[in-house]
């Protein structure tokens, strides 16, 4: 077991390192420097001084090593547009995104698994077709458009829910208010995630249907409900857990756009602001953080694998 974990940990570190390499060099391949440094009114001397301040006058590989050395200690550089340390900006905004992402994940996983099971237990009949339709719609509708429509319906017309933000002005301690602000963004995000969950759940449960152990359980006389819970679901959960790990990437991508639609001040919005302002250190930091989260989540998923399915521990 520990051997398996150590091996996976090593792989994770390698991937993280490669991610940092890729991101750093992509950013630095850019033709032209950060836009705020290209202020035409400053003299050449002043501009060179600013370059030196941000270390942009040294060769790429040197800059990478310096950045990496700082990064492993938690120092991700300073934001060009805001003057604040990147790590502080990240920490300020990370919480909001985590809350949003977790809510969306719980919604998507809960509903998605349920719908997938219903579809698998009634293959090719109307529940299955209904669920497939929902899944296909979820994959086809642009999530930001769905968000805008949701704002029109629920915030503008019906006035049930707020249109944007994390919290109403002056009510930052009110949990209910925060939840009300979460409802629309999390639901819209979840709608985009559900198709994957449904698809994997459905095929995983369908696969268990034809196995010997399920046939044995049925022929023993076990009631169907027990067969589903004790045998089919337990085995179906392995691929489902795997997919939940993969979904993290989709979750992050989705939150970038959704946070923009709903004016939700999280990591996604930070990334967009940085992209618009050509704020390189922030973009680098945000992408590394996203990559880190993805790798960590996948590691945790592998751990969960080994817990759920004892056979994996001995591979």
């Amino acid at each position, binding site marked *: 077991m520990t051997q398996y974990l150590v091996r996976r940990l090593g792989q994770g570190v390698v991937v993280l390192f490669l991610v940092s390499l890729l991101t750093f060099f992509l950013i630095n391949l850019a033709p032209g420097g950060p836009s705020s440094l290209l202020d035409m009114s400053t003299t050449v001397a002043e501009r060179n001084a600013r370059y030196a301040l941000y270390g942009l006058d040294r060769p790429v590989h040197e800059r990478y090593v310096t950045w990496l050395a700082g990064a492993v200690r938690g120092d991700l550089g300073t934001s060009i547009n805001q003057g604040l340390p990147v790590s502080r900006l990240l920490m300020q905004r990370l919480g909001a995104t985590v809350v949003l992402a977790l809510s969306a994940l719980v919604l998507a996983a809960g509903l998605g698994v349920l719908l997938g099971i219903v579809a698998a237990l009634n293959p090719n009949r109307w529940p299955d077709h209904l669920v497939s339709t929902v899944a296909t719609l979820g994959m086809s509708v642009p999530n930001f458009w769905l968000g805008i429509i949701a704002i029109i319906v629920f915030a*503008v017309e019906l006035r049930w829910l707020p249109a944007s933000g994390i919290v109403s002005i002056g009510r930052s301690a009110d949990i209910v208010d925060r939840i009300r602000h979460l409802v629309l963004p999390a639901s819209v995000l979840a709608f985009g995630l559900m198709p994957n969950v449904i698809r994997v759940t459905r095929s995983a449960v369908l696969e268990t249907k034809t196995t010997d152990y399920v046939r044995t359980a049925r022929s023993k006389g076990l009631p169907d409900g027990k067969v589903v819970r004790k045998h089919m679901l337990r085995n179906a959960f392995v691929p489902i857990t795997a997919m939940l790990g993969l979904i993290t990437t989709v979750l992050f991508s*989705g939150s970038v756009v959704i946070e923009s639609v709903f004016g939700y001040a999280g990591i996604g919005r930070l990334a967009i602001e940085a992209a618009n302002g050509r704020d390189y250190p922030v*973009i680098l930091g945000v992408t590394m953080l996203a990559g880190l989260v993805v790798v960590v989540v996948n590691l945790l998923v592998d751990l969960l694998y080994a817990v759920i399915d004892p056979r994996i521990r001995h591979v």
Partner: protein
Amino acid sequence: MSEVVITAAASAAPRRRSRFLARALRQPLGLAALTVLVLLVLLVVVGPAFLPHSPTRTNPLRTLQPPSAEHWLGTDELGRDVFARIVHGGRVSLSVGLFSMLVGLTIGIAVGGSAGYFGGRTETVLMRIVDTFMAIPTFFLILVIVTSFGNHPVTVVFTVGLGFWAQMARSVHAEFRRFKTAEFVEASRALGSGHLRLMARHILPQVLPQAIVLATLGVGWAILTEAGLSYLGLGIQPPLASWGNMLQNAQAYLFRAPILAVWPGLFIAVTVLSFNVLGNALRDVLDPRGS
């Protein structure tokens, strides 16, 4: 003996084609989706020549008008005809979607195929690169590239393609690996075929059905991604219309003219839905053993 072989081969070909057609005709949803897409393509290719209004001419006297006989879908915040912008925007969105999928497809097949075919260290190195790209959430990767390289339409095409290639490479890699040891490959190698010939002329056709399915679904994904990028202001820039940046304009007027937000998104949804339905139908026709 040879007459039997020739006759068998001759009768196999038309039977194979009619079997494909028979399966294709049994997919009503897929055919409906295909029809929708053909109509859409016709609209955006031929439409601009017949439009009564220009998509870029502003008219400050007639802003935010509801749909009428004059302006089929109304006018936007600058008085431009929405329908004309939808048609021109469709041109942009569809071509970006198609070309970025082609970029992703090409890179994905090249990398995945080489990794699966050559194996060994090439495979390890290439697949690690694929893993690295897949570890970064697609939108973040795209943001990084757009920040560095700007948002000229051609750049956008390549950027979205770079978000798509890694998934393609993974699937193609598995397939190439499977066929690497097939008998027909060995036979061809024994006859003196080089690596490129084996990969392109022998293995690739076997992988093509699955690749076509992924490509179709990929166009849908590419259209969604370009729309999202343009909505965020990082993709296609105005005054060039794209369904995505039309939605960005519309969001500022949600309280006054919410209908403006409905049209672009509706068109995106219908287009992507058709591609997805078509892709699923293609999967059933070309690759019936899967699921």
